[in-house]
């Protein structure tokens, strides 16, 4: 932010950082084979849905594209709005064939069509769901503004508590393969993830 922007109070929302979404497609192999953290076959992308007819039509086109490209792998798409007014587009691979690559391709199709339509700054994050050996949900969240990943582990059985210890362990395990958000204060939790 330059001096002139400060003086005039001008503020623009930053668009997405260089894309490092596909880092998950190699990192998950290590997660699975060495750390017993298995992909659950679900991923989601979260964005601000503008209440304009143009944005809605962009979304409809996009859903068709994702459904079409996903038909080979059997990926299903569903959308829902959360209580904060953010839209979740959930990609779901059928059981037995959980392919992180397919999910990443689908998520990328959604994000790039939003960007192509000129709404890149509305993208919040992408979430990939995993499960560890103790059946504990482990999420990997990709922050579009930063271009970094971070793990998010909600504590089992407790409302709005996260297991920071487990998250830091996972960071240590995977940091060499996944670009992890270096600033811990930006590991924002996402409560009520619908996947």
């Amino acid at each position, binding site marked *: 932010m330059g001096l002139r922007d400060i003086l005039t109070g001008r503020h623009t929302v930053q668009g997405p950082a260089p894309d490092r979404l596909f880092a998950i497609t190699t990192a998950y192999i290590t997660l699975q084979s060495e750390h017993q953290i298995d992909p659950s076959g679900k991923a989601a992308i979260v964005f601000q849905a503008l209440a304009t007819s143009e944005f809605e039509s962009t979304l409809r086109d996009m859903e068709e594209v994702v459904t079409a490209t996903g038909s080979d792998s059997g990926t299903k798409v569903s959308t829902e709005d959360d209580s904060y007014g953010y839209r979740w587009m959930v990609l779901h691979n059928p059981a037995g064939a959980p392919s992180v690559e397919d999910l990443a391709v689908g998520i990328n199709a959604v994000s790039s069509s939003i960007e192509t339509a000129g709404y890149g700054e509305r993208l919040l994050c992408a979430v990939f769901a995993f499960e560890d050996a103790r059946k504990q949900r482990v999420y990997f969240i990709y922050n579009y503004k930063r271009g970094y990943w971070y793990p998010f582990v909600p504590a089992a059985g407790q409302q709005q508590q996260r297991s920071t210890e487990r998250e830091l362990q996972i960071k240590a395990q995977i940091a060499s393969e996944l670009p992890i958000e270096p600033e811990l204060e930006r590991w924002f939790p996402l*409560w009520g993830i619908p996947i």
Partner: protein
Amino acid sequence: MAKPRSSFGKDTGLQARMLLTLFLLGLVYVVFIGVLFAAGAGAGLIVIVALVLLLAQLFGSDKIAMATLGVKEVSPAEEPELHAIIERLCVQANLPKPKVAVIETSMPNACAMGKSKKATTVCATRGILQLLSPAELEGVMAHELTHVINRDVMVMTLASFFATLASLIAQFALFFGGGFGGGYGRNRNEEEDIMIVLLVSVIVYAISFLLLRALSRYREFAADRGSAVLTGRPSALASALLKISGTIERVPSQDLRKAEGMSAFFIIPARTKKSLMNIFSDHPPLEQRLAALERLESQLQSAA
């Protein structure tokens, strides 16, 4: 990939007015410094006093405000919804997460304090948490975060430095009979100098007061705009402003008098009566803010 395109138009008019105000303020200050130097020594002490005041204001004002307002920091477990809203806005604005606080009062309002992105507290009153829907609350919080992003506390404090200095000199001269040149044995020439400095100080203070108020109003518009850009929902903020102002006018005036001094921090000034003249006001009138938000919404709807 297509070139990123903005959903909103440019705010050239607002920026031009803001730059003009800053320019005029600078001009007044330059004249003022010139007069001070022409008057020679004696003013040095006052400049130092003003500098100390400025630093104290810059580094201590948020702490004083937090102490007097009864601001209580809240954990994510206590206020999950407020935290979730702010976290998402921080991701959206690419900001580190500020401290989140609540003021236990039924008056609906919100404020942001702190001089930098790293050391910020955003507060909401209990009243605003109960009054607004999540989307409206998000709009209000985005307005406050935009104040932080735009470094409004810093800009306003620095911009008011010479106004503070001028008012100090005027008061000093009045109370001590213009005695800052050293009491006895003054000649006629020095007396005249002091009178000129006093006069100029009063004028500088008056002009810069009006300019600062104008600047403050422009920055409110900029923060409203920033909120709309951040959330993509200008109408949610408009609806929130309507709800808040409607309630504020219904709150008993005794509460308001207590809160009067803090209005610069708030999203809506805590005042019952309409100001005599808009030029004395540090917040723009509600109708103008709503009109600006309506323009943003129609820009958003017709962006194609």
